[in-house]
């Protein structure tokens, strides 16, 4: 029942996304000039419009798009003439890997600090977390990315001077991180299995390559984590402090259960649903919301791809990215629902 309900709701949401996206992309100017240039004759334009089905009523065009979509056909890029689905199959894993590592980084700082801040408000770690959260929400992600690139890639090789009195030469240092030019520095990628270079390299047994891929991931992931982690920190803090103040936690202590047991069995368990929910939402949001960071790091993901599509008025590209981001959102939501369903007995009745 629960499952059936969800599936129907999700299908309706997706259909709405496709309809709205389709209407917007089709109603903002004609894609003809973009693919042909402006210096062409009326006749050619007319012929091309006929070919592309642009003379059909919009409803018919939508129907055509939808039936193709359901068969996995997302159209063809009008610029590169490559099927959009093929491009997305290459670029989506790049974005997904970056977003995945972003969450890994957030699980390293935002959630532990949030737990700590909930358990001990006003403590040093609570203040550290709040400071990081304040910083994260007040700087733009692309700016932070540029700052990291400047400080950790650009600057070290340019430090080069001599301390006068003691005659000590300082620098130049090697860059701490690779140039912001994509997922690997000119090396061949590993054979495609999952599309995550770190994982594929490990599958191929190439540890150097895995390390290289990881090294390229760190700066974009840290950048995105610092700017998308603050809500995770705050929600974790609130959830933990609310759970901690529950009567059942005091009752558990009163039966003589130890602090560790109560924290894991009662506090963290009861605090986890909202955190899990937000983590999934953050993942979904970053699939499309990390665009500027992708651009800054020349990350060949679907965000960069969408920007490229927009630059060229390549509407099928833009629409496809919107739909893919929505599908991912919806699937994540569904998975989180399933997990919460398994965890929380109240949802099962």
């Amino acid at each position, binding site marked *: 029942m629960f499952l059936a309900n969800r599936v129907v709701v999700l299908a309706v949401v997706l259909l709405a996304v496709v309809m709205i996206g389709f209407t917007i992309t089709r109603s903002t100017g004609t894609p003809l000039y973009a693919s042909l240039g402006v210096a062409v004759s009326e006749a050619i334009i007319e012929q091309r419009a006929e070919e592309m089905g642009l003379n059909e009523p919009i409803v018919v065009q939508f129907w055509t798009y939808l039936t193709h979509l359901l068969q996995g056909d997302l159209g063809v890029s009008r610029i590169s003439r490559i099927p959009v689905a093929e491009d997305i199959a290459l670029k989506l894993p790049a974005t997904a890997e970056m977003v995945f590592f972003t969450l890994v980084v957030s699980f390293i700082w935002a959630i532990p600090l949030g737990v700590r801040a909930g358990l001990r408000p006003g403590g040093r770690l609570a203040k550290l977390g709040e400071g990081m959260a304040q910083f994260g929400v007040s700087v733009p992600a692309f700016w932070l990315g540029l700052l990291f690139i400047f400080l950790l890639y650009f600057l070290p090789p340019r430090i080069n001077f001599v301390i006068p009195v003691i005659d000590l030469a300082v620098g130049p240092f090697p860059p701490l991180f690779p140039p912001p030019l994509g997922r690997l520095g000119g090396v061949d990628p590993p054979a495609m299995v999952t599309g995550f270079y770190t994982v594929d390299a490990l599958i191929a047994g190439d540890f150097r390559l895995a390390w290289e891929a990881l090294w390229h991931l760190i700066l974009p992931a840290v950048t995105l984590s610092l700017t998308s982690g603050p809500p995770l920190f705050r929600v974790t803090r609130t959830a933990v402090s609310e759970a901690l*103040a*529950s*009567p*059942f936690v*005091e*009752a*558990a*202590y*009163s*039966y*003589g*259960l*130890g*602090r560790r*047991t109560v924290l894991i*069995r*009662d506090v963290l*368990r*009861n605090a986890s649903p909202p955190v899990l929910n937000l983590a999934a939402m953050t993942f979904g949001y970053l699939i499309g919301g990390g665009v500027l960071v992708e651009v800054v790091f020349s990350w060949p993901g679907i965000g960069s791809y969408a920007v490229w599509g927009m630059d060229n008025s390549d509407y099928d590209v833009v629409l496809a990215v919107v739909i893919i981001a929505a599908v991912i959102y919806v699937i994540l939501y569904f998975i989180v629902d399933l997990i919460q369903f398994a*965890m*929380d*007995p*109240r949802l099962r*009745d």
Partner: protein
Amino acid sequence: MNSGPADGALLTLSGVEVTINTLSGPVHPLQGVDLEVFPGETVGLVGESGCGKSMTLRSILRLMPPGGAITGGTVEWQDRSVLDLDTDELQTYRGSEVAMIYQNPVTALDPMLSVERQIVDAFKANREVLDGAPEEFAREALRDLEFGNPDAILKRYPHQLSGGMAQRVNIALALACGPSLILADEPTTGLDMTTQVRVLDLLEQQVHARNAALLFISHDLRAVARVARNIGIMYAGRVVEFGPRERILTEPSHPYARALLECVDLRTDERPRSIPGLVPRMTEVYPLCAFRERCVSRMAVCDEEPLPRHELGGRRRLLCHLGPGHD
């Protein structure tokens, strides 16, 4: 003031003070609580809401809310000081020696864990060796509380229990730990009349069957009068009068006790009237009598001298300038 543990008492509180630091300043809910509980007996504490009854129970278990601390007095369990127990000893003391039953039975259970898991975990925390499967003990524990189909209840989650069932589960949980003192914080306040009577009867019966003592608190004098042999009257963080039930119910000495008694008719179930005036908010320490503003017997000395304490023999005690021998 601190006279040390009374001979043979299970639990002795002397001059217990609690301070809670809140964002809007300190609160002083307990301002010198004296109380003894002897093995196997039933003691009741009664007082209006906000008098510090729940805080008294929490201080016995050393369970303080965030920002709260026991800032004065002593809590003795037999001949040990509860305030000096280390973490391990405290864990053993909680549950195995003293267990608590809470006012809201549903929120006192973890909503995400089955009844079975909660009882079994309490068992495991308090019994070194179990001669049998813990699930079997959990089933027995529920059967003691007159659950006809314990197996079905064990599989349930708290939201699937009615208030009365949830409170019986809480009682089973507390008893499962095998304590010699049960603290009951208004255990029937949220339940309807018939369920109240049933749950109280069960509680008394099970406590007596185990020779455990019961410290029962309620704002409802009738509920306390039903179960307790000795009754303490609590006001503004102090037990202002203590004595045997018959004495407290027929000729109480403290004006507050008399006012409480006048508000209820013990022979009917009518809703009690209330005493004019309000319980203080406990943001100050009151060296003088905190009941002065509401007291009909207030004298000049009440506004000048700190509250005296009269030991009246037996276990009777009175904190009032009137003293025992008036009218």
